[in-house]
């Protein structure tokens, strides 16, 4: 003890002076659980004030009444009945809310399938083919940097490419493949899916890459030694071991697309209905209880999807 203290004293005099203070104040030291509260408390308070309590208000307000310009704090199911208006009367046709959710789920499924495909192979390349740690870091960073830049800019960036007179149309016209500009390239379902894939594949790459780098390389060698083909190794070894990453990435992508209203608004030319957009429209019309009711419905559906997916893996264990 003394020798080590001497060595330390030469290296850093401050520390040893501190050791005396430490001995002196031992009795007055705070209990560990109190320190934990001090450390974690502030973050907990932020989540309480700006996330948990607001969620409770969303649920409460969804059962309030409203008129043209204000909230009326009296129990009413109007937020919900307005939302589901015509859903029974119009059967067997789908009502507006039904159609909107169908559209949202369709976008969700397309974006999920595409981001999963791209994300899986990008992560696979980074994890198994890039051998040097420096290259692995550099290339992962290359994939991450766009995530730190503005989403709106990354959306409007498609305008000069996909617009009526954009690069794609003028290129295709020059080569003579088409003689009128393609109208469905921009402000369409196509451009919405393209932009969502562009923005959010990152959320698929990171967790899948994380799962893959943890796979013990000797397992893969063992599979090859036992005579498995590349495809068999992929299906029977790599995919099962990367499953937690795949599920976490899927949860991110699906919840983002379910609640998105900005990408769908900007890239859909404000013409495509989606679950998130209904909420925005209701808020803009100052119909807060109706907006809140829609938020509760969206929350319930999102929660259902997450519960179903988290059955497959234990999220907490994977972090």
């Amino acid at each position, binding site marked *: 003890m003394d020798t080590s203290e001497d060595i330390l004293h030469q290296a850093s005099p401050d520390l040893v002076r501190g050791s005396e203070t430490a001995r002196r104040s031992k009795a007055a030291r705070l209990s560990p659980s109190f320190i934990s509260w001090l450390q974690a408390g502030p973050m907990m308070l932020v989540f309480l004030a700006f996330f948990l309590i607001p969620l409770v208000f969303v649920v409460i307000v969804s059962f309030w009444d409203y008129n043209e310009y204000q909230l009326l704090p009296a129990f009413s199911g109007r937020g919900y009945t307005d939302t589901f208006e015509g859903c029974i009367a119009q059967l067997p046709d789908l009502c507006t809310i039904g159609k909107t959710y169908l559209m949202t789920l369709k976008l969700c499924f397309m974006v999920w399938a595409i981001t999963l495909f791209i994300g899986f192979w990008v992560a696979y390349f980074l994890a198994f083919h890039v051998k040097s740690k420096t290259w692995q870091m550099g290339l992962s960073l290359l994939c991450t940097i766009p995530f730190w*830049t503005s989403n709106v800019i990354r959306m409007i960036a498609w305008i000069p490419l996909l617009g009526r007179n954009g690069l794609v149309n003028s290129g295709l016209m020059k080569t003579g493949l088409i003689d009128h500009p393609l109208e469905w390239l921009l402000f369409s379902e196509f451009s919405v899916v393209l932009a969502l894939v562009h923005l959010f594949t990152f959320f698929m790459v990171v967790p899948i890459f994380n799962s893959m780098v943890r796979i013990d390389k000797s397992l893969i060698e063992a599979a090859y030694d036992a005579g498995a083909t590349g495809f068999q190794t992929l299906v029977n070894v790599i995919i099962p071991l990367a499953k937690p990453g795949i599920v976490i990435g899927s949860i991110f992508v699906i919840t983002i697309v379910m609640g998105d209203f900005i990408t769908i608004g900007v890239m859909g030319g404000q013409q495509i209905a989606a679950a998130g957009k209904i909420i925005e429209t209701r808020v803009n019309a100052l119909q807060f209880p109706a907006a809140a009711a829609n938020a509760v419905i969206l929350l319930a559906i999102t929660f259902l999807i997450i519960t179903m997916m988290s059955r497959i893996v234990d999220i907490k264990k994977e972090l």
Partner: protein
Amino acid sequence: MTEGRPRSFYVLAIFFAAYVLFLYGPMIAIYVLSFQGPQGGLTFPMNGVSTFWIAKLFQGTGIVDLGAAFRRSLLLGVIVMIVTVVLSVAAGMAFRRKFKAQSILFYSAIASLIVPSIITSLGISLEFRIIDDLIKAHWNENFETSMGLLTSGLGAHLTWTLPFGLLIMFAIFNRFDPRLEEAARDLGATPWQTFRHVVLPIILPSVIGIGLFGFTLSWDELARSSQAIGAVNTLPLDLQGLTTTVTNPDIYALGTVISAVSFTVITLALGTIHVLNKRQAAKGSDAGKGLV
């Protein structure tokens, strides 16, 4: 490496390169287009080269009051960054021991990350509206609103940045060797000294990473700000507002200026992390390297 690479390497390398091109190509297109001449339009080919549109933004004669929104976003970004770093490091330290509300905090953070932004944003706006109504009813009839950039806006941004900060802290402490702290304690360091002289220097590069996430996520934040920011707009909200009406390249110029700030911050942060890592490698432990 000497065996040569399998064919799948080349196929996937091309796939990866295409993905990177897909990520960056469109962004680069608008940066280029924002340097068009005064007659420039929204698409290629470029109509002359000038800094006309960028200059127009800074003269304030353009479509938005860039200066004010710029300062607001910068202020909010810096505050969000500081709060995110401090709260994440503190909470990350707490998670190294067991404590009672551990799983509540963990699941709040995860939920805050994946509950759709529009719902969080709506909730915060309802919360502040109700607070306003209560103040008007009970204390001050002339009260305007408690919503604003540094109240509801700050809170909304933190619900987005703190989960990232916490997850990064988990990643750090997964690889952290607790024996280093034990050694410091055995040598008589107080908990604060252990943190200040042992833990913090080791985790500092990642802490800068948390700051990078905190600032950039706030600087570009849109969905959570949309309902919760109050009367004034941040820069991304102004930019979004322009997407429906604009017909000339000043939207690209604004995009370029916003991205320039992002890239400056990213470069600064990554540069600092690089320097710190180098220094750690140079001055770090020589354990296992034999006697000097």
